[in-house]
């Protein structure tokens, strides 16, 4: 018995949070991301290379989740939206105040191009029984995120494994 509440079981494999990115893919973030890891791949820095290989500038594939992270603040917004909202919903519904991500896998399809506006949806794939780890007692969950561009081409499928937990009280 996993002991997962039925209202959470009911969400498994159900598409949630069909969202459009708040901004188009832009080169400033691509260059900053390359700089953050000192990635000198000319595909991202040299327009002639990008034109030759990919028909124009593209983003580092590993940046795929960048494009749907909401702004930290925006006019008229009272509550800061969270990226991967299903993850935060689970923390709240299961009463697990802390969480870490342990596994991430992305399968890449069409390259993400400068100017693209991505659309995403999230699917909860599984929630484990309660487990005890060195962090505390909690549950593992797997959430998939599907990314498509404005031409409805699949650009990637990302799978996250998270662990929501309560820290053990000090002895």
């Amino acid at each position: 018995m996993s002991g997962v509440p039925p209202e959470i079981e009911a969400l498994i494999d159900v598409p949630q949070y069909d969202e459009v990115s708040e901004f188009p893919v832009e080169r400033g973030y691509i260059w900053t991301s390359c700089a953050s890891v000192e990635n000198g791949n000319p595909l991202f820095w040299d327009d002639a290379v990008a034109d030759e290989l990919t028909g124009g500038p593209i983003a580092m594939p590993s940046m795929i989740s960048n494009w749907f992270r909401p702004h930290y603040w925006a006019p008229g917004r009272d509550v800061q939206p969270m990226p991967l909202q299903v993850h935060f919903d689970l923390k709240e519904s299961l009463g697990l105040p802390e969480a870490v991500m342990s596994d991430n896998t992305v399968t890449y399809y069409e390259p993400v191009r400068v100017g693209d506006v991505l659309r995403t949806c999230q699917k909860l794939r599984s929630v484990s029984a309660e487990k005890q780890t060195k962090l505390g007692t909690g549950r593992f969950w797997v959430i998939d995120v599907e990314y498509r561009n404005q031409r409805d081409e699949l650009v990637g499928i990302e799978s996250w494994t998270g662990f929501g937990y309560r820290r053990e009280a000090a002895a």
Partner: protein
Amino acid sequence: MTATATHTVRTFDQVAVGDALPALSYEVTATTVVLGALASRDWRPQHHDYAFATKRNGVKDIFLNSPNQAAWLERFVTDWTGPRGRMGRLGFRMLDSIFPGDTMTFTGTVTSAESDETGCGWVGIDITVAVGDRTCTTAKARIALPSSPDDNPWSRKGENWKP
């Protein structure tokens, strides 16, 4: 001469199972962590706020976030392949955190090299990110390499791209 002629082009036929990628070592600073988090639009405080990380998360310092680790892994692999290498899949497991003051070292070994039915050459790589004796992250990459210096995996679409 093509634009990519002066850059590394690792072709599929140059790779064999058991090949080791050149190791990459990097001294992580607080700037590394904060720059990586903000570059990936990750505003969560454990990646920039020491007090939050130590008191709320119970760890010793701010630590590298997941998307930035993905970016480091991509850089490690494509340093080796050159710009014609096209990532098909990248998965990683974070076993321990990477903090300012750590020297992280990336090592990688080719675990598979096979062509699919479309003729695309795929290489599998197992990667470890360690700080001293502490294994922090393990990863698996699947990347397409050109079959010849003129081949371009980035031109593959639809049924001809099977990541």
